[in-house]
């Protein structure tokens, strides 16, 4: 059984400080939904409101269509995996997993049987008698998942559960989490500040900044069609050029960036309508590093500008070329590793361009900090 979760105008205040501001989102039953945002943006706080450890100051949380206000964490059909896992160190792995059954007075044998089933589910067969401290990081992770699943929740809440793991293990656990979610078929609400994590696992993501939900959409939408400058820069890399609108026609805006004219398509709001930008508005035009190309040799280069190469970084499947434009702006240009860069040497000047459709024009607003 899985349930949908709906946040209606949820705000959470600590004194005068709002850790969450008017958050509205409906998470479908059986969906893998991630809240993605930088550290301190209010993700944990929001999750605590869903799990019942915190009551929203305003608005309400509905689970399965039922208003949860006044219902404690032990009475909600949710189960929370804590940022630090919070396994019980003095109990065996099996006792940890079966704790919720012990609480309900399930017999010892039935508890053990269920614990073994769950250990199978998370690929930890036969580890039930170990103590928690005898497990590796990834194994602890799985025990926490199994313990949370033992209550048969309709919604599983995960608070950055992979953050303590090393990169390889994290990537492995991503796939595994996704597989577990599909096997048990319940709603997963996942919290992370790691966009890679959010994009690889989720059906949809909600990008948060400073207590606000900036955009909700599929991973593809959030990456390809960001609604705000924050989302554009937080999810993936982006080159941002600030300027003023010179002309708008058919959702293409011509923007004057310090004397150079660039064209890009006008971005859409969270609701899906084009942003209402007019001539003279302050806007930012965003171009992904991989959407840039060398102007030299292109047939009819548009949106050209020249820049000096500073450094070239090899990053496995990509090469990142860092440049400075003649307006002293940092530019990042990515090419596949197979691309021959032997004539691109630091210090040389190159001409870059981008396609109008691949650039997005959004009204000015705060960017994500690097």
């Amino acid at each position: 059984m899985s349930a949908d979760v709906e946040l209606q105008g949820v705000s959470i205040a600590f004194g005068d400080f709002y850790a969450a501001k008017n958050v509205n989102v409906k998470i479908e039953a059986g969906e893998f939904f991630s809240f993605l945002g930088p550290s301190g943006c209010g993700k944990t706080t929001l999750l605590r409101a869903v799990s019942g450890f915190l009551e929203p100051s305003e608005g309400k949380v509905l689970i399965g269509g039922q208003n949860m206000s006044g219902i404690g964490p032990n009475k909600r059909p949710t189960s929370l995996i804590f940022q630090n896992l919070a396994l019980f160190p003095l109990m065996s792995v099996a006792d940890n997993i079966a704790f919720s059954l012990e609480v309900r007075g399930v017999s010892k044998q039935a508890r053990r049987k269920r614990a073994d089933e769950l250990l199978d589910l998370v690929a930890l067969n036969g580890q039930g008698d170990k103590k928690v401290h005898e497990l590796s990081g990834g194994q602890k992770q799985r025990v926490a998942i199994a313990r949370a699943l033992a209550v048969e929740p309709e919604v599983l809440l995960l608070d950055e559960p992979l953050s303590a793991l090393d990169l390889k293990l994290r990537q492995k656990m991503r796939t595994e989490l996704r597989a577990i979610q599909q096997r048990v078929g319940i709603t997963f609400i996942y919290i992370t500040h790691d966009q890679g994590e959010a994009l690889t696992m989720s059906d949809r993501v909600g990008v948060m900044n400073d207590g606000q939900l900036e955009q909700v959409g599929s991973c593809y939408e959030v990456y390809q069609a960001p609604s705000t400058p924050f989302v554009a820069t937080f999810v993936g890399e982006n080159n941002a050029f600030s300027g003023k609108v010179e002309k708008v026609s058919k959702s293409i805006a011509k923007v004057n960036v310090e004397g150079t004219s660039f064209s890009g398509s006008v971005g859409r709001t969270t609701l899906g309508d084009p942003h209402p930008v007019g001539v003279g508005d302050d806007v930012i035009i965003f171009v992904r590093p991989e959407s840039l190309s060398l102007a030299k040799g292109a047939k009819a280069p548009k949106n050209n500008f020249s820049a000096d190469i500073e450094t070239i970084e090899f990053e496995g499947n990509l090469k990142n070329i860092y440049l400075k434009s003649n307006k002293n702006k940092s530019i990042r240009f990515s090419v596949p590793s197979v691309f021959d860069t032997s004539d691109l040497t630091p210090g040389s000047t190159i001409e870059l361009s981008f396609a109008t459709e691949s650039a997005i024009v959004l009204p000015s607003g705060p960017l994500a900090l690097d």
Partner: protein
Amino acid sequence: MGGFFKKNGSIISTFFLIAITFWLIFLILIPQLYMLDLSFRPNLPPLLRGGPDDVYTLTHYKHFVFGSETSKDAYNYVDIGVFVDTIGTAILVTIINLCFCYPIAFYIAKLATPNATRLLILALIIPFWINELLRSFAIRILFAGEGVINNLLLEMGLLDAAVNFIALDVALYTGLTYAYILLMIFPLYNALETLDTNQLEAAKDLGSSTIRTHWRIVIPHAKAGIASGSTMVFMLTAGALATPVVLSSPNTFWFTQLIYQWFNMNDNWSRGSAYSIILLVVSVAFVLLMMRIFRVAIGEVVR
């Protein structure tokens, strides 16, 4: 040892070594060994000490078990009775103390805001600036026949006649419990403070009741602190003198009062030493037994 010197510098290290050695040898080892030796010697006037009569003997230990040679009883019922009473009461006081301090320590460690924590700790410590004897008298004033509590209860009409709290040993139990409360609260507080609050929340999220969370998670976590606090309170209660002298009823006798009598009033240091050693050995044995039963390693207690 070399590491210790390197870490602290040679002057500080030497000072520590000398201080600890002095403390161990002169203040603990030598007096206790002297007492042990004394307890096996007859009580002789100064002139005869070291003479032919000064031989090792068990007479003082025999006296504790069988009584004086002139008594008709098979065993020394009076002294043994006092001893058993003392140990029993000390156990009871330790249990009361634990039950009383656990919620307070838990509240301070896990529930109170940082400001409230500071305030509460101060409120606990400040009364202990007053010395033990005065505190005992204060409790006597509270519980006396004409005391504050009796007067209050009488005035409110809850009592028809004054209750003799002293004779019922209510005052003694209260006084002894209060006397060493800090030695229970602080080890408990230290242990509870290190408990990850997320574990409490995780237990709650999994549907656990408050009582079960304490039973399965908090108490096991705080076991070493409980053992450490209980040990100290038990040892000190069993060895208390001032509080029982002030607060016990006329027919209650504390074992330390017996020891005191042998040393001071009867001028029989040997017998006093023997009685002290008996108290020490039985208390330590009891503590070790309890630690065995509750599976606490001695290293955990002093952590």
